[in-house]
């Protein structure tokens, strides 16, 4: 990992604070609409389905790989050059939303659609922990 690895701008979106605080404690949370009960990810100020107010609920941390890519040339984000090849994926959570993440603890070529995965947490700075996923 290099020092210039991009980090989330925690101070900019106050409505997302609970997501990052939870990750810091090793918990995965997603937003749920108080009006229509739709769950959503990524964090937004209001429900993307109906515009209602949102609250946070604990996610099981279980899901399956919906789509993935094996990164071989870090063209846009050179900070990851020492980590290739690695796998980015949208994981479909049991709660419904798809979450963009990284699949870890496996050979990149073994990842396929539908692969059952579970959340794991990777600390990348003093204040930031990322929810990544590993095969289960």
């Amino acid at each position, binding site marked *: 990992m290099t020092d210039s*690895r*991009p*980090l*989330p*701008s925690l101070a*900019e*979106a106050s409505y*997302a604070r609970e997501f990052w605080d939870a990750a810091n404690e090793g918990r995965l949370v997603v937003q749920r609409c108080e009006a229509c009960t*739709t769950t*959503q990810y*990524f964090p937004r100020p209001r429900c*993307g*389905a109906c515009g209602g107010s949102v609250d946070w609920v604990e996610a099981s941390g279980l899901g399956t790989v*919906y*789509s*993935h*890519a*094996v*990164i*071989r*040339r*870090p*063209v*846009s*984000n*050179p900070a*990851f050059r020492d*980590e290739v090849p*690695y796998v*980015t*994926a*949208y994981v479909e959570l049991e709660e*419904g*939303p*798809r979450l*963009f*993440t*990284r699949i870890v603890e496996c050979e990149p070529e073994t990842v396929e*659609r539908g692969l059952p995965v579970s959340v794991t947490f990777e600390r*990348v700075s003093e204040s*930031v922990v*990322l929810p*990544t996923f590993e095969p289960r």
Partner: protein
Amino acid sequence: MTFEDVAIVGIGETAKRRPDDPAELRSLERLYADATASTLDSAGLQHAAIDGVGVIRSGVQTPANFVGHLVETLGFENVRWATTADTGGSNAVSLLLQGALAIDAGIVETFLCLGADAPVDPTAPPAGLFERDPRGYVRNYMDPFGTQGPNSRLAHVQTVHASEYGTTREQLGHIAVVQRRHAALNPRAWFDDPIDLAAYLDATPIADPIGLFDCVIPVNGGFGVLLASAERASELDVDPVEIAGFGECSNYGDSRSPDVTTTGVTVAGRAAYDRAGVGPDAIDCWQVYDDYPIVVAMQLEDLGLCDKGDGGPYVAGTDLGFDGDVPLNTSGGQLSAGQPGMAAGFVQLVEGIRQLRRDADDRQVRGATRGVVTGAGGVAYGKNLRHCSVLVLERGDRS
């Protein structure tokens, strides 16, 4: 007809550049100025005839009210309608529609659409083009995990298309190969050396399944399209092109459980066909936004050329040459003519008009009278194209 009182009367295009010497770097204003001169020249009009001006939002940093700065710099006076389009790769079509609306409403008689960008800057880091929204999901929920921009994001889409429908790289490679052939026939294109399917398949892997020849070649360049009222157009010595139909669509589909193999072109295309009163059988040439071959294949499905999922076998089994059955991206497209940053949509728009003016020289589609142009701006989270535009253009009659 949609805009009966509007005609496209001019197109312009600068040479494409990839400067490796900082001293050679052309300013954005220079690209706009050259594009303007080229466009006015093609219509036989002077600066003073322009009373409406629109620009795109470039990737190169520009000040607020850039359109105002540019109108001043280019020397247009007493402009009565100045506007900006900011829908990424859809912006060329969006700007054209803004201009057509202004003419249709009787606000202006002429409207100059301009798009230029300079993504290739040897003095800037390679990823320096697009500044991240500090509150945006790319900055906060994608970058930290190692996303590699559109290359990796369209790789995700292609894995789903391949898994659902069996689409192969061998099939999609036909798009890259035919567009390179077209680029070799286009003196304004960046590449002029052909590639074959073996070269496509052997290309450097970037983000599996995306390889090097699935990616565009960034270039610096500028474009223009000039609209005029039908009355004004009738005074000019040009072959007018008409906007027969159009449609746009932002954030297509169910956000909770999106089908990432279907694009907003389904909605935008249906609107464009309905307004034009024609279907895909009536189209002579296709300029389809080509940031990646998989994006072209999905749009061909969504435009009704084949069933959903059959894009792979369709492109492999169809002659897509300018002289073939379904002429596709006859300039070489962004894959081979070059992608000029946020002005990318003009690659398709200008070539679509050029073909209907029958001004495409060695790559002219014989008898071209009706063409489709698409634009696509950005990739939405967990989906595909964020903003889609479709135009049906028709060759008009000189009056």
